Structure formats: C-alpha cells, structure tokens
C-alpha cells in the first residue's frame, strides 16, 4: 500500500473550482514529481495535502490513517513535512534555531519554561546533523535573514527535514536558484532519497526528469498524466512544454 494517498480531491473557492478529482499516490522511498503550468493548482494541491486547506471533497490517507481536514500541526506531528515556495522562515532567529524549533525532541519539551535551550548539547548536535545535510554547517549562528537566497532555500528544506518526517513535500525547491545551486540541490535530493519519501512541485523539467521516480502532470486542476519519466517523455503536453521550457 502507498505511504501517502490522495483520493478524488476537490477544492473549490466559492464558485471557482481549483482542484477537480485529483488522485495521487506516493510509494514509500520514492521521489515523486508534480509538474504543470502556472495556475494549474499545484500549490493548492500541496496546501490540501498538508492541511493548510481543507479539501471540499475527497480523502487523504497517510500511512493507513485518514488525515483529511486535520490541521497542519497534527499532520506535521504525524510525519508529514513541507517547504514553501515563498520563503517562510523565522527571520529574526539564527539558522540553527530555525532547525531546532522543528526538531521533534525539542517539540516534546514545549512546556519547559525554566530550562535554557542554548546549553542543550543534544539538540545542538541534532540540528548540526541536519545543517550538514543541507550544506549550512558553519553558518548556524547567523540570523536566517542574512543568508544568501540559495542558502535560505536550503534552510527552508532543512526545516522540513528537521521534523524527522516520513514524507517531505517540497514546493518548487529550485525556484530562483542558479545552475550551480540547482546541481547542489539535485545531489542533496539524491542523498535524501534513501531516507525520506519526497514529493516535489518543480518547473525545471531536466531537474525533475533526472531525479523523479514518478511524475504527475496537473493541468486545469486535474491530473492529466502520470507515470515514470520514461513513460512521460512521449506525453504530448510534456513534450510541448519541454520544447518551450527546456530546449
């Protein structure tokens, strides 16, 4: 059985239908790509899957449990993590604190009010492991706002990983990155694929086709094609947009 499944998701805002009968299924340990034109409903779809929006109809199943309509914090604690397309960090806080805040071991201490965070070696060590993964070791005490754009994107992913999730949703991780940073991100995702199930929205088709095990194409709020990168090479829409975007 799939680790994460969306069954017939519909989402309407007033009379506007944004998602229509979306069904997706992500197997454990795979990298899954979602692509489609701007305004197709990809981010709305992510918002539904991670609890930001409640779908109008349909069910979301994670690890055999129905999580439809649960609030984001509950879904997050169950092991579903996400990054955001627009940067969404704790800007005043240091890099390492952004990570620490997301660690489950830290979260369990939420009611501690008289113990200092900053002498907790174990938390600092856990956070360093994550920062090492995303290549930010050495910058842990900088305010997160002072990082370069690419490093902020990396931190965005680091925060998603720090929650020790079973599945990670990444919303356009390469957006705004240069060629070199994109290559680094690709190697990061290759490192992560053994540990996490990954779902990512991506515009960069070369990036996606290189990394993904399966790809779903969303257009007009519907899944118009699904398959392995090889299968999708022959898809008309994919070919058309590949000509436009990649060639």
């Amino acid at each position, binding site marked *: 059985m799939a680790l994460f499944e969306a069954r017939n998701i519909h989402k309407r805002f007033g009379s506007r239908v944004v998602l229509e009968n979306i069904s997706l299924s992500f197997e454990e340990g795979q990298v899954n790509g979602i692509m489609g034109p701007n305004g197709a409903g990809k981010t709305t779809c992510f918002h539904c899957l991670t609890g930001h929006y409640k779908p109008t109809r349909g069910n979301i199943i994670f690890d055999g449990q129905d999580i439809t309509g649960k609030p*984001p914090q509950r879904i997050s604690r169950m092991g579903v993590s*996400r990054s955001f397309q627009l940067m*969404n960090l704790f800007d005043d*806080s240091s890099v390492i604190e952004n990570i620490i805040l997301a660690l489950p071991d*830290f*979260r369990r201490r939420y009611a501690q009010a008289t113990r200092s965070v900053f002498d907790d070696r174990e938390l600092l060590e856990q956070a360093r492991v994550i920062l090492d993964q995303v290549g930010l070791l050495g910058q*842990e005490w900088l305010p997160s706002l002072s990082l370069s754009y690419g490093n902020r994107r990396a931190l965005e992913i680091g925060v998603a990983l720090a*929650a020790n999730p079973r599945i990670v949703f990444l919303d356009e991780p390469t957006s705004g990155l240069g060629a070199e940073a994109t290559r680094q991100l690709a190697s990061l995702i290759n490192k992560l694929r053994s540990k996490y199930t990954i779902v990512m929205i991506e515009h960069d088709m070369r990036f996606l086709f290189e990394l993904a095990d399966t790809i779903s194409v969303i257009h007009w709020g519907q899944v118009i094609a699904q398959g392995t990168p090889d299968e999708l090479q022959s898809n008309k829409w994919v070919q058309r947009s590949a000509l436009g975007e990649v060639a």
Partner: protein
Amino acid sequence: MATLSDITRRSSQWITPQIFVFAVFLLSLPLWIRPIGLYQYIGIEIAIWIIFALGFNLLFGYTGLHSFGHGAYLGVGAYAFGLFQLHVGVSLIGGLLAAVFAAALAGAFVACFVSHRRGIYFALMTIAFGQVFWFASIKMHGITGGEDGLLNIPRPDLNLGVYSVSLSGNTALYYLIAVLLIIVTVFTWRAMNSPFGRILQAIRQNETRASFIGYEVWWFKWAAFTLSAMFAGLAGGLFAMAQESAYPDVMSLHQSGLIVMMVLVGGGLVNFWGPILGVILYFIARDVLGSITETWLLWYGLMFVVMVMFKPEGLAGVLAGLSKNSAETLNDLPVKTAEGN
C-alpha cells in the same frame, strides 16, 4: 534593526551579569534614592510596574500579541488581594496567591476568546474585555465598593516562621517587592530562553510556519496570555498593598494604554530590558517633569509620538545605536559554549 530574537548564543546561567547589575541596583536603591532627590514610594511604584511590564512584554514583545486591555488583570489582582485581606484573613502569602490566581483565572478565560484572533481583532477584543472588567468593578458595589473601591486594605506582615517583619514602612515594603521583582526578572529571562519562550518567539515571527512544524499555535498564545495575566495579577496585588486600596481606575483603559507606552518607549519590542527602561523613564518623567509643568503628559505624549515615528525600537534601540559596545551589553553577550565551533 535589533530584535528580541536575534541572539547568537546566550548564556545558560540563571543569573547573567546584567541581572546581577540590575539586582544590585534594586537592592541598593533605598541607600541613594533620597540623596538624588526622589523618595522611597516612587521606588515601590517603579518596582511594581516593572513586574507588570516584564509580564506584559512576554505577550506584547515576545509573542507579538498586542493587548490593549492589560490593566484589567492588574485590577483583578488588586481587588483579589484586597478582598482576601478584608474577608478571608490578613495574610501576605494568601493575598498575593489570591491575586495571582484570580488574574490567572481571568486571563485564562479571556484568552479562550482571544487566542484565535489576530492583529487588530485581537487588540480590540482585549480592549472590550478590559472594559467589561472595568465596568464590572464600578457596578458591582457589593463586592468591589463601586467607584470608591476597596479602602483600608491592611498591609499584612511578612511571616518568616520564627519572626515576622512589618511591612507598614515603605522601605520594608520596597525590599519585599524588589526581591519579588528580581525573582520575576530571573524567571522571565529564563523563560524567554526556554523551549516554551523560543516557541512563543517563533510564533511571533511566523505563525504559519510554526503550525507547519507541529505547534498548536493557539495553545501557546493562550498560555502566554495567561502567564502574562499572572504577572499583572502579582503586580496588582502588590499595588493594592502599597496603596492600601483597590479602585476601578487601576483597570481603566488609561492604565492599559500606559503600559503599552512604557514598554514601547523603553524598547520592549527589541530588547528584554526595554520594559524596565520604559517604566523608569515614565516615573522619572512624571515626577521630574511633573514638578516643573502641569502639562507633563503632553510632553510625554509628544515624546511617545516622536519615538513611534522615528525610533520604534525605543530607548533600548537608541542606546544600542549610540555605541556598538553598549549594543553588545544590551543585546546579551555572545557566550562561547564549551564545545566551541
């Protein structure tokens, strides 16, 4: 701009050098307050309002919840202290516990309504509840004594087992309040560097992200509100003891606005010590300017307006701007941790 959370590394000591200096300042105050032309009672007022302000800033500065009705909890504490002395028994511990407990109860109740609200809606709901408490204190004659309030509240002795200390003198009372204030300072400092406090600050910065990494945001807001009401209640109880009375004015919108002004002028939005500076500045301004001109509030108000326009970081921000060195002493010395880096 300096911010409350822009720490690099913080000391995990209970008593930081700043807290030590502050404690020395407080405990030595009776020795030099008269020579500099002030009087003991202003020390009491300042210490009480700092307790109120530190608790308030947990909510206002650290959690980013802008309550404009916090005078209510000061008042609830004052009335609870008075009612305890008048109807239950003359007891310092009992009275203060009653004050803290009553304010916590009132705060927890209100927090249930407001912790799901944001921005202006939050501010207005806190004003509305503040007004409800204020109205109730005026109209419930039988309990609160109406507009006159509770009068002749006794100042109970401090009972230390074997001997008890009379607090009828202002110096003795000041020492009690100063010791409580030091405890409150140590606790709030510690709390804002604890997991609980760091989560509150994360919520201030980015509520959405906080919920996406698993936090029940409304619970933390509720807890911050209740906690800060407890400090207000403690301050209120001490205020009733100092004034030997409790009256509706303590709860008025005016007082709620005053605490906002003090905290902001001092720099509570960017610095732990801001509220303390703000309270001291206000009371000094009241007494020094007030002795020169009757319109001192006009000048204080103008200063506040200018501060909001040009330096919302407040006095702490001004001091930090004056020199890099003082910025470091204000913004928490970076401390090398043992494992280094």
